[in-house]
């Protein structure tokens, strides 16, 4: 609280000084190659987004317009639109977010009901779903202004038009729990509270389900936090879709430049985070990423990055898995703990990975 106040005053007095405050990747966040070394499960799955496990242990992955079984890649459900977030209820019914078209409830592979608007506003940009202890379902909408695929624009426009709504299990009614969030991208039910990762504000909040002011769990993260998944030890896994760079923070402060960039340049070539590393020559190249003697250094400022963070029950970071600049397993959108492994969906690489969980963390 006082920290925030001081940083606000500091920013007002010395604009730009906050750039220095980009957190270091150190301690539990110390970079490693564990995501690069993670084994891909099966062939590539371009468009893969979220991963969940049914009660019987079947792992489902959302890929484009389908929900697949990860094991044999057979279709579990064909959906009417691009499927994003998934969640599984205790009764084995699956909730799936459809890009631009709200949330579906799927029972035994059959769509039974759908939620398309809440409080008079259509639900178009669902980023994450979570089933609460009482069986209700929490839905986060990243932005009311931009569609899902335009998340980078939403960041560059400094939007904070996201919300979290809670719907009944049969999706018949819903109400808003929190609003004016800057791209809420992950949800996790924690008893009476709901953890919400607020991507553009680099933090994870704990929102009481009964209503009231949220409490920060994590703040000033080095990246943009996205989906959360539970760990059997009471902790959680948080995937970050990209990391912050000083250049990006700088561009976020440069209004005229940013607006002209948004208006005139192809989104693929913006100074913006990306899920996928292409190394294309039209993308902005940062000084540290210049090829020297034939290689890009792993510590180059990354345009895309792979980062999964493990949290303990108190929400402290205890471990992290990385794929740095020069790696390919970037843009991690979802995680799922399965025994000794954690399954991570690298949307950037279009691969589902299986990384080893280090015990004793």
């Amino acid at each position: 609280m006082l920290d925030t106040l001081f940083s606000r005053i500091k920013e007002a007095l010395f604009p730009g000084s906050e750039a220095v405050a980009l957190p270091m990747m150190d301690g539990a966040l110390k970079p490693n190659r564990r995501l690069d070394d993670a084994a891909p499960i099966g062939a590539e799955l371009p468009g893969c987004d979220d991963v969940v496990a049914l009660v019987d242990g079947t792992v489902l992955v959302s890929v484009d317009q389908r929900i697949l079984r990860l094991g044999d890649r057979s279709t579990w459900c064909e959906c009417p639109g691009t499927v994003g977030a998934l969640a599984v209820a205790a009764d084995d019914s699956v909730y799936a977010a459809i890009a631009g078209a709200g949330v579906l409830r799927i029972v035994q592979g059959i769509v039974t009901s759908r939620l398309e608007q809440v409080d008079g506003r259509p639900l178009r940009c669902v980023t994450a779903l979570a089933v609460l202890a009482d069986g209700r379902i929490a839905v986060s909408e990243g932005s009311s202004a931009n569609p899902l695929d335009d998340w980078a624009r939403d960041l560059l426009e400094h939007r904070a038009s996201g919300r979290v709504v809670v719907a009944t299990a049969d999706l018949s009614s819903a109400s808003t729990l929190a609003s004016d969030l800057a791209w809420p991208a992950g949800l996790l039910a924690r008893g009476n509270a709901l953890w919400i990762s607020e991507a553009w504000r680099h933090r994870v909040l704990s929102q009481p389900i009964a209503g009231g002011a949220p409490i920060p769990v994590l703040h000033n993260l080095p990246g943009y936090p996205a989906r959360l998944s539970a760990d059997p030890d009471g902790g959680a896994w948080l995937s970050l879709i990209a990391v912050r760079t000083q250049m990006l923070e700088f561009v976020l402060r440069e209004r005229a430049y940013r607006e002209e960039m948004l208006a005139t340049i192809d989104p693929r070539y913006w100074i913006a985070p990306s899920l996928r590393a292409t190394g294309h020559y039209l993308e902005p190249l940062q000084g540290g990423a210049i090829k020297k003697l034939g290689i890009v250094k792993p510590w180059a400022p990354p345009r895309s990055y792979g980062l999964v963070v493990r949290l303990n029950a108190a929400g402290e970071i205890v471990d992290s898995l990385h794929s740095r600049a020069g790696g390919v397993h970037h843009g991690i959108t979802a995680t799922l703990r399965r025994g000794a492994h954690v399954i991570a969906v690298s949307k950037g690489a279009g691969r589902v990975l299986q990384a080893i969980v280090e015990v004793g963390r």
Partner: protein
Amino acid sequence: MSVAATMVEGGWLRRLRWRISLRLFLSELLAKRWMEPAIPFALMVGLIVLFSITTPYYATLGNAQQLGREFAEAGFVAVAMALTVISGGIDLSVGSVFALANLAALVFFNIWNWPVGLVIAATLCIGAAVGAVNGFLIGYLRTRPFLTTLVTLIVLRASVDLLGQHFSVPLAMASRVSWTWDVIGVGWIAKLPSNLAILGIVAIVGHFLLSRSRPGWHLTAIGSSRKAARHAGIRVERVLFLTYVLSGMLAAAGGLFYAARLNSSGSDTGVGWEISALTAVVLGGVSLAGGRGTVARALIGAVIVFVLVNGLVRMGFPGALSSTALGAVLLIAVGIDVKWAKNRGKAIQKIYVNPTMVELPPAPSIAADSGTAFAENTRLQASEEIGLDQVQGPEDVILDRQDRLYCGVREGWILRFSGPNFEHREVFARIGGRPLGMAFDRDENLIVCVGGMGLYGVTPAGKVYKCTDQTQRSLFKLNDDSRLRLADDCDIAPDGTVWFSEATIRYEMHSWFLDGIEGRANGRLIAWDPATNKTRTVIKDAVFPNGVCVAHDGRSVLFCSSWLCRIYRHWIEGPKAGQTEVFADNLPGYPDNLNRASDGGYWLAMVGIRSPTFDLLMRHPGVRTRMIKQIPPDEWVYPGINNGCIVKFDESGRALESMWDPGGTKHATVTSMREHKGWLYIGGLENNRIGRVRLPDADPDWNGYDAYWGSARGRS
């Protein structure tokens, strides 16, 4: 000839706003050595103006002359103090030497009736003798200057008191009159008080001695670091000894003038002068830590102290109060000066880079399916590697008539690869600096542009010689631009003149990208004539001139302007001689080296591709200024130089074809290429290899040397 005038388009007002930069002027001004004492100088001028306004008749010639005469003696003592302080020591005995010299001169003149010449010599010798004692102790016995000269101060002061008592009666009765003596004391030299005129001469000589002579540099070096000076071979003991001798002599000279002027041997003569001299020296900006200071600064400080004390006395302040004021001024000035000296470099650094607006029209399409000559392909990826991991940054490559391959690398060497598959690597020459563009002259000497050094040559036997490292200095430029800072690429005209580009005069090789951030016309096209050994700047405001190539007919020189994505043709012969025109404009990337092709065209290495975000940055100079201030260089946005691209042009400047390595898998940052016997050899500023690709349609016998100097010569 200005090629910069056409560099920006758009609103002229906005263009003007970014063209003219006061900050640029200020940054270069502050970087000058003579700006270091700016604050003391301003204080001096301020004080004189203040007293001129507040004190009646202050600003009159008569008063100025009177003050000058009184000041001169203090000036000598201040210079004496300054020398020892610059040498890293201190001479506290200057005040008592001054008093001793005063007394001695009076005794020699009045009582012993020596001739004036002998009086002068003897007095100076006394000062030198005291200085020699100090110098011997400090220089050879390495005693601490502070304590040593403090002891000298006390001993001399006591001696002066004793002697003064002894001679006071005879001195009071003396009445010798001498014309010479009066000239020294109250005479005039060219309308200046004689002592002030001599102080002026001493100051000028002292300034040159200190800043332009070997003993002066030695003195400063010792002051900066005695140990390092010793390691550099400076005879520290002797230099220190002589410094104190000189200091003693200067203080004695002050005493001599004092004696001649006042003819009085008061017991308080010179009391406390070491403190005011020290105050003056420090106020003037001579560092107490040693190694930094000039005679002029010491004198500026002396003027401040003198004017302040004198002015306060005239305004009716009691003596104690004016001393307090002096102390306060000293404190403030020292405080400011310390901050200034410490932060001047930082201040310059903060305002040195001054981006301007560079507006490029939309780039021609490079898409693989665009059908343009620039269309992306993968032809460079088929290259064969030469010297993989045996070279670090072959910026330029060239082949000789024996098919040996040369390249300049990061270490400052020229490497040579020979043998059928170029597997034999040897260091051909160690020049130093950063070897960049190369060319062979008629006698098969390798002419090399060396970043940080200038234009050098290497004989076929591997002997390095200097061609030129300076050109004429431009008038009205604060920065001394006579030295070549970043010679980039060269080529040789049929008459033997070496045409070469100097990419920028404001940055070094390691900070070349800052010139890109700036986007100003900081570069030059220079010609060196080996026959006369004359270097002349032909075009002095080119925007990062990079590759240089003499046209096939030898009548014009092509040169690239990297940040403008443009190639110029400068005519050196024929009706248009001296004119510059655009050869190729609005390239999709940043042109680097340019070389002849066998079919009468030219190869261009495109070091990077224009990325949309970087183009936009170039239109926003303010954003670039903030970018380099707020975030570290590794985070700055660069154009797409992780890419390889080579383009061929015909004689009219039309692009014919391009060869690509998209993403730079093998050849990122391609800075050069050279056609030789049906192959194209590729160099890169940051690469770990040289590559070559087969040119199926090229003349298999064509090579660079013959194309320039004819095949008949040398083969017979």
